Each structure stands twice: as structure tokens, then as C-alpha cells.
């Protein structure tokens, strides 16, 4: 019962449409008026200080060079991040393309083992 009272009173405080009869019954019920008072105080506390004071806003504007939009450092970081993402995406696309295409048949692949003919061992020189 108390829960229903609280819900009706809470909706009323939040500005939601509430049936007048239900609101009257809720306020008449035991604890109804106390609930209304609690919700009003809670709302007042939430609203109080939710926005910076005009003085605080003015001080921050002066510190940030008087800009009213997004701060400059954030814009620089954002642009750098976007460029990095774009570069990585481009490299990834190139690598993917290479992986899909493979080497051209006439292009030598990377060797996994390198050996050498050694003169006098397995390489002979003929008289010129």
C-alpha cells in the first residue's frame, strides 16, 4: 500500500500526469504527506548545484582562452586519433589486398632459408 502511495506522489513530483482522485487518496493515506515532502526535498537537492555558477563558468572561459565551443586540446587529440585510425585502416586495407592477391607469380617470395655456393667447396671455377 505504501508503495502505491509513493509511486503516485513520485509521479506527481516528477510532473507526470496523475489522476487527481488517486493523488488525493495518496495524500490522505498514512505517510502520503510525508512522502510528498521527502520527494520535494530530494528534488530540490538534485537541482541545487546541478549547474555551475555563473562565476565558475566565467573563470573557466577565461582559462581556456575565451572559447565557447569544445576545448582546443581536446580537438587536437581528437583529430590525431582520427588520423591514426585512418592511417591504420589504410595500412590494413593494403595488407589485406596484398594477402588476398598474394605475390605476382613472377615476383620472388621471401626466402625462409638462405644458403650460398662456396667456391672451393661446392662451387668450381673453370679456366677462362
Amino acid at each position, binding site marked *: 500500500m505504501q508503495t502505491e502511495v509513493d509511486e503516485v506522489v513520485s509521479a506527481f513530483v516528477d510532473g507526470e500526469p496523475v489522476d487527481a482522485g488517486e493523488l488525493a487518496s495518496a495524500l490522505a493515506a498514512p505517510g502520503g504527506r510525508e512522502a510528498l515532502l521527502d520527494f520535494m526535498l530530494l528534488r530540490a537537492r538534485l537541482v541545487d548545484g546541478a549547474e555551475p555558477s555563473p562565476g565558475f563558468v566565467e573563470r573557466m572561459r577565461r582559462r581556456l582562452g575565451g572559447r565557447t565551443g569544445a576545448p582546443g586540446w581536446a580537438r587536437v587529440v581528437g583529430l590525431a586519433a582520427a588520423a591514426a585510425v585512418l592511417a591504420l585502416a589504410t595500412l590494413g586495407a593494403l595488407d589485406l589486398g596484398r594477402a588476398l592477391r598474394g605475390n605476382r607469380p613472377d615476383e620472388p617470395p621471401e*626466402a625462409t632459408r638462405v*644458403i650460398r*655456393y662456396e*667456391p672451393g667447396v661446392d662451387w668450381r*671455377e673453370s679456366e*677462362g
Partner: protein
Amino acid sequence: MQIATRRIRFRVLFGLLLPLAGVGMAQDGSAPAWGGERARLTLGLLQTWESKATRRMFALGPIDVAAGDRLPDAQLPEIAFALEREGDDCEGSMTFESAETLLETHALVWTASFEVLSASTDRIELRGRWRRLGKGARGRPEELAADPDARLNLREGDRVLLDFARSPDPRCARSFALELSAELAEDPALAREQVGFEMWLVHESPGAEKRSDYLRLTATQGQELAFQFPHVRVPASVGSHEVATELHIDVRGTVRGRIRPDGSIDLSLESERTLWYVAPDGAGEHVGDGGEKLLNVRPGEVLRVELPGPTRNTQRPERYARDLAGHSFSLILRARVVS
């Protein structure tokens, strides 16, 4: 000469060859389990007629011989080739009789025996002995030539002339020679496999883009294939006494692949390089060198085989060194099992 050809009579003691016919077969006639690589040997007698080509007169083989075994075999230690004039005929025999017995009736006798020390792709090691016997100045049998400890390191398909002698009678032939040839027997389970090769010749030079030429080859198991790349042309500097030329580098060779039971591939790569100074009129000088590599690779493994710098074994090594300074050549090789 035709009369002499008709008169000559050959005799092979087939009864004595029967034990050899069983080489490579199990007692029930089925093929035996493949117990490792075997050399395939042939011992033969060559005959050359006056003004005619040389041909094989007798041959023992080809016979598959495993490492540690001999040709003939343990029960028949030597093969003998004997020649004699008999009336108007010339008689030749391939037999297992002893040389001493044969010399009672034959003018020229060879005996030979070889053991297989090892057998693998393009590396067949043999140890053996041979003797040539005949009648000496007083008509007595004597040893005319011999090698009691002949050592042979052969590639597949090699032929070795062990000994040569003039015919004791020109009506039999002009000359005879004892020859041994060696191959490698194939594992029957893999004999129909194919090996695919991809090869690149890579030329790097100072201040120029890396250049490569590409070849693709397919061979059956153990088959040797020849390859040749197009000329690589390098401008030649001109000295005070030199004609304007171009230096051509020709790279060619042979490659052989053999798939092993474990799936790896034995490779034999023989490379040859010729450096040609070619004048505008086509004249020029050249020098060649080359080498051989025996390798075991995984299918698809990419090998880079670097060729050495220019040869020093020439009358003007400084010219080659000058024109090829900074240039390098290498072969890239990839072998696969063709499925």
C-alpha cells in the same frame, strides 16, 4: 666387317644369372617392403667396332642394391666378362666362373664386383674392385690391369669407364671397355609422384631496381630437369685496349626432386654460370663456373641460393670484378608436391 659381325657369338650363362633375377623380389614373388634407398647398378662390357659406334655387348643389371650389399651378391662375388677367338668365330661370355678357369680358354677376361656404401639423391658411394687378365708374352695367364680398391662417388645417371683394352683379335672388335653405371631405385609407393618447382633468378645491382626472371617446372619423382634463364645484360666498361662490349650473365643448370616417405623433399640443384663479354659483332670471351647443392626441404619452403662473386680463375679477373662490382645474383627455389 659385316662378316666379322655375323661371326661373333655371345654366350651368357643364364643359369648362373637366375639367383640375380630374384634381387628385389620377396620369396613369395611380391614386392618387398621398401627398406630404404637403393642404388640401381649396371656392370657392362662395351664393344667398339672399327669405324662403328660403341655399344653395350653384355650387361649385368640394372639391379637394385641396398647399402651394404654388393653386385653381384654375397654368393657370387664377381662377374666375369670373357672374350676368345674360337676358330673363325669370336666368343664372348658373361659368367660367374673364376678368372683362372676362363683364362684356360679365353684370351681376355674382366672380373668386377662393387659394394654400395650409401645411396641417396645424386650421391651414390661405391667401393669395389676389378681386374683385367690375359695371356702374357709367353702365353701364360697374368693380371694386366687392376684396381683392388676402386672408390666411386657418383650422381644419378653417371657412367664410369673402369677399364679399356684393345681387342685381342681385330675380328672380334677394335676395343672393349668395362663400364659401370648407377642410378637410384625409386620407392614404388612414391614413384608416380610429381614435384613442382618454381625458380627465380634475382639480379640486384647498384642504383637499379631489383630484377627477377621466373621459371616453372614439373618433374616426376627423381627426374632431373634442365633450366635456363634469359641473359642478364650488364654494360661493360671499356678499357684503353678493349672493344666496346656488353657483359652477358647466363645462369642455367639442373634440378631434381625426390619426395621422401616423411613428406619432405630431397633436392639436387646444379647451377652453371657463364660470363660472356659480347662485342657488337658477336665476338667475345667467356668464362664459366658452377656448383651443386644437395638439400632436404619442406614442401613449399622458399630457398635463396646465392651465387658467388665473379670468378677469379681467368686471365683478366679485374675486368670481371670491375664490371660486376655491386652486382649480386641468387636463385630462389620453391619445391612442392604436385597433387
